[in-house]
């Protein structure tokens, strides 16, 4: 065994290769043994303490309080002071403890020997790893050869540090777009003229018409939205009513009072159909529109011409009476609100914001407001950039991956492998054995969330400005590095101009810089409990800022202790202000939606006879897009309550299933013109007979011990292409 390089699989099984004499696994085991000693040895168990941290499994950045026994985390709870999580965590947040303990985490820096993707590794020292990356960066010559740096989208000084380093290295810095309000921003801004992302006051709405928004799943900011939903249903006022428009029976559809199965590409048509009825029956909010209607007249004309209830009914399959009823319910509600999935396409976003305008939902309780903080400056989408690479349109000499999020969003990272052949170096900073590690030449694992400093702007969903700030809750378990410190080392090793660009030594410098900036703002306060937050809000409403500390040092300590800083003062009315500052609303033309919907009809497709079903691919809310892909507690929850743990499942109507003699729970084969996958059949009453919904449960064949057990790799369905909504399939028994 020792003279023969191990296969990738062996590496995964034993956590190491033997090329250099010592195995990565052995190294890791020694380190783990030390960590376990630290955890269990000598001192006995029993000294309980709590540490503040931030959940990094999604952009919501919920505050965490980790329960430590003798310094080892045993359980994560929500940070009760965090205004976003208010002491709660979602399933991903709870399970993120498994990221820290992931037994298949990368244990230290390593270099790929042999062919890329083969998985033959040689552990190297951090110095060697830093020198290697630095020399390649020097070779790339400050941008003369293209460099691509990819990270999951986030805002905050640490993300800026990453961007600053790579920009100085001449790289194109791209981000995996998160499904947050930032995606909704452009449409909202076009309609209203504000320069901020929209906020939805779900909690106080009385009637919510949801166009595919995963309201109870992970919409915009998971925990926050769920709490809002709970209060929307059972708050102090009357029970809110929810209508879900979505092709599959998601958890939101199950919880909704009414579920209308409408394919995503037809939802804009339905929205305009409802707009038609509102305008025609004069059920719009006249007071609002008369004042700020803008080009409503032109919009009205176009809607009237194209979206008669009959047209809409035939395009969407929703009966005319239902369209009429939905419009009347929406208009008749005390505080109606239309919400939409963050990854919806632009026509649907435009339609939904138009609906909100028609019912005057802006700047009122249970409506749409604008976020206190401005939109992030031009965030370039990583998926597009990586597709360019996969298609051979660009050849970066260095590809730097902060995490595996972008690859997970890609149809098939394997396509990328070929396209990356001319690339000198693929370097992954992810601490996990994930899709990034699978294609990397150099592994430079950074700390996991509990081991890290945090200074992140949570995704905007809440009517406050916040920065989630925390220091490491625990000692690093393995030989991983602080990301900012690592970049600095590389910069120093690479020399100018990189070294000058990195004005920090490590993440704590960056975080302390942020704390000083916040102190200088002279507003806001450390995360505080609800009562105190309300008190501060009232003060600031009166123009007061009560310094929460006597010195900037004390302030910094208080913020880090509390887990973040928030300025909860929120002035509503900015949408109306913006509208008043220009000639009112500027509606997008509703023209194209109908044509698009028509094209979705299976009969309109090529090969419809052979592939008669529309594929509605969806990502289960439980699967994180940035953390460890190796969390067994989450794999168990897949497909619940329908009992399809650990596997991909497909939802289809009983009629469709009967037509191919498939029973509930049976394995089926889904065939597209480009590929085939197997899944467990879940039969759903009222599911449209022309649609099959498939859970995108990504397999990580080279991943950790649990991740690699997930079968099958649903992305195979798309072959070399992209798993888009336009894929047509057929279903057979497996």
């Amino acid at each position, binding site marked *: 065994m020792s003279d023969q390089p191990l296969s990738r699989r062996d590496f995964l099984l034993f956590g190491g290769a033997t090329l250099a004499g010592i195995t990565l696994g052995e190294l890791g085991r020694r380190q*783990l043994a030390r*960590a*376990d000693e630290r*955890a*269990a040895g000598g001192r006995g168990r*029993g000294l309980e303490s709590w540490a503040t941290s931030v959940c990094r499994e999604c952009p919501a950045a919920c505050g965490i309080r980790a329960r430590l*026994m003798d310094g*080892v985390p*045993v*359980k*994560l*709870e*929500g940070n009760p002071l965090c205004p976003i*999580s208010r*002491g*709660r*965590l*979602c*399933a991903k*947040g*709870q*399970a993120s*403890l*498994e990221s820290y*303990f*992931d*037994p298949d985490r990368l244990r230290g820096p390593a270099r790929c020997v042999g062919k890329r993707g083969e998985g033959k590794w040689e552990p190297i020292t951090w110095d060697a790893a830093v020198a290697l990356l630095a020399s390649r960066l020097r070779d790339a010559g400050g941008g003369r050869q293209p460099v691509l740096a990819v990270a999951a989208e986030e805002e905050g000084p640490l993300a800026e540090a990453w961007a600053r380093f790579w920009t100085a290295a001449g790289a194109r810095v791209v981000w995996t777009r998160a499904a947050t309000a930032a995606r909704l921003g452009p449409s909202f801004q076009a309609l209203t003229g504000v320069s901020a992302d929209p906020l939805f006051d779900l909690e106080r709405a009385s009637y919510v018409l949801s166009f595919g928004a995963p309201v*109870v*799943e992970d919409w915009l900011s*998971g*925990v926050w939205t*769920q*709490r809002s*939903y*709970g*209060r929307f*249903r*059972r708050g102090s006022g009357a*029970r809110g009513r929810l209508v879900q428009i979505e092709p599959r029976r998601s*958890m939101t559809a*199950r*919880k909704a*009072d009414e579920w209308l199965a409408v394919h995503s590409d037809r939802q804009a048509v339905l929205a305009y159909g409802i707009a038609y009825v509102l305008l025609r029956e004069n059920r719009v909010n006249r007071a609002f529109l008369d004042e700020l209607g803008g080009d409503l007249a032109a919009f009205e004309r176009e809607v009237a011409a194209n979206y008669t209830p009959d047209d809409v009914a035939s395009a969407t399959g929703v009966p005319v009476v239902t369209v009429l009823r939905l419009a009347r319910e929406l208009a008749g509600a005390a505080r109606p609100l239309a919400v939409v999935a963050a990854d919806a396409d632009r026509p649907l976003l435009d339609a939904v914001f138009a609906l909100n305008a028609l019912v005057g939902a802006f700047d009122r309780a249970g409506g749409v407001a604008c976020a206190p903080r401005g939109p992030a400056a031009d965030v370039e989408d990583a998926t597009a950039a990586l597709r360019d690479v996969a298609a051979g349109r660009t050849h970066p000499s260095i590809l730097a991956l902060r995490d595996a999020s972008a690859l997970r969003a890609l149809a098939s990272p394997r396509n990328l492998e070929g396209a990356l052949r001319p690339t000198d170096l693929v370097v992954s900073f992810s601490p996990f054995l994930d899709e990034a590690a699978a294609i990397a030449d150099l592994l430079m694992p950074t700390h996991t969330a509990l081991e890290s400093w945090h200074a992140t702007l949570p995704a905007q969903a809440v009517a406050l400005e916040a920065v989630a700030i925390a220091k490491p809750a625990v000692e690093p378990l393995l030989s991983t590095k602080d990301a900012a410190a690592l970049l600095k080392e590389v910069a120093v090793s690479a020399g100018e101009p990189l070294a000058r660009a990195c004005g920090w030594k490590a993440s704590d410098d960056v975080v302390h810089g942020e704390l000083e900036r916040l102190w200088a703002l002279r507003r806001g306060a450390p995360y505080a409990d609800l009562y105190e937050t309300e008190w501060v809000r009232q003060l600031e409403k009166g123009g007061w800022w009560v310094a929460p500390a006597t010195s900037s040092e004390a302030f910094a300590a208080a913020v880090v202790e509390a887990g973040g800083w928030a300025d909860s003062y929120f002035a509503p009315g900015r949408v109306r202000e913006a509208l008043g500052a220009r000639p009112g609303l500027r509606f997008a033309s509703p023209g194209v939606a109908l044509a698009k919907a028509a094209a979705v009809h299976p009969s309109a497709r090529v090969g419809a006879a052979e592939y008669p079903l529309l594929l509605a691919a969806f990502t289960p*809310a*439980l699967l994180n897009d940035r953390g460890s892909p190796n969390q*067994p*507690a989450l794999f*168990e*929850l897949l497909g*619940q*309550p*329908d009992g399809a*743990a*650990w*596997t991909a499942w497909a939802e289809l109507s009983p009629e469709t299933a009967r037509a191919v003699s498939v029973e509930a729970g049976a394995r089926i084969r889904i065939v597209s013109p480009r590929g085939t996958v197997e899944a467990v059949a879940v039969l759903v*009453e009222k599911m449209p007979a022309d649609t099959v919904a498939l859970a995108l449960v990504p397999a990580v064949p080279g991943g950790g*011990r*649990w991740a690699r*057990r*997930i079968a099958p790799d649903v992305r195979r369905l798309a072959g070399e292409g992209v798993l888009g909504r336009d894929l047509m399939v057929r279903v057979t028994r497996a």
Partner: protein
Amino acid sequence: MARWGLIVDLDRCTGCQACVVACKHENNVPFSTPETAAEGRLMTWLQLVPAEVPGRAGAAVLPLMCQHCDRPPCVDVCPTSATYLNPEGIVAQVYPRCIGCRYCTNACPYAVKVFTWTKPEWPPAMASMMNPDVSVRPKGVVEKCTFCHHRLMLARERARSAGRDLAPGDYVPACVQTCPAEALLFGDLEDPHDPVAPLAGSARAFRFMEELGTRPKVVYLREGE
């Protein structure tokens, strides 16, 4: 004497399963694998099930854990009293006494008891993730939701060392603590000042399969107006 009870507001519940993960970590419940899950050996003290419930057409999504029945069929049949109803209404398991006959698992109409088919195992790296307040069960015994009884002990201890009585909110099970939708509420059903008491008697309240006469202390609040 308190009578602990759990309210599950189905109208608030989002089916997010945060409670399920919280329970698993809090109580050192071992992970499954694709094989063990397919063999009916997925260990969980709490799971979502599709259930027909009052006031709803079509199956509701029900977080289902031990219902802590006041007339527990599982307790009646246990030959060794390894499962019993404690004075505060918590149906408890005495792991060292259990002979693993699985009579209780079969008698429980809610099918919420699980059996340790094999020695529970975690990768060595995860050994220190265990909650030291909860014993890891050996192979061959039955386990289930305990209402996070260890948290009651801790809360009592803390209250005692602070020189006061247990107050509402001191004792919060792991699932209740994390529930993002605030759908779970825990407290003393006997205490008129505890918010759970009026909810348990509200018009929306029902007990799952209450027609069996098991008198559960998990009270569901139905969806809808």
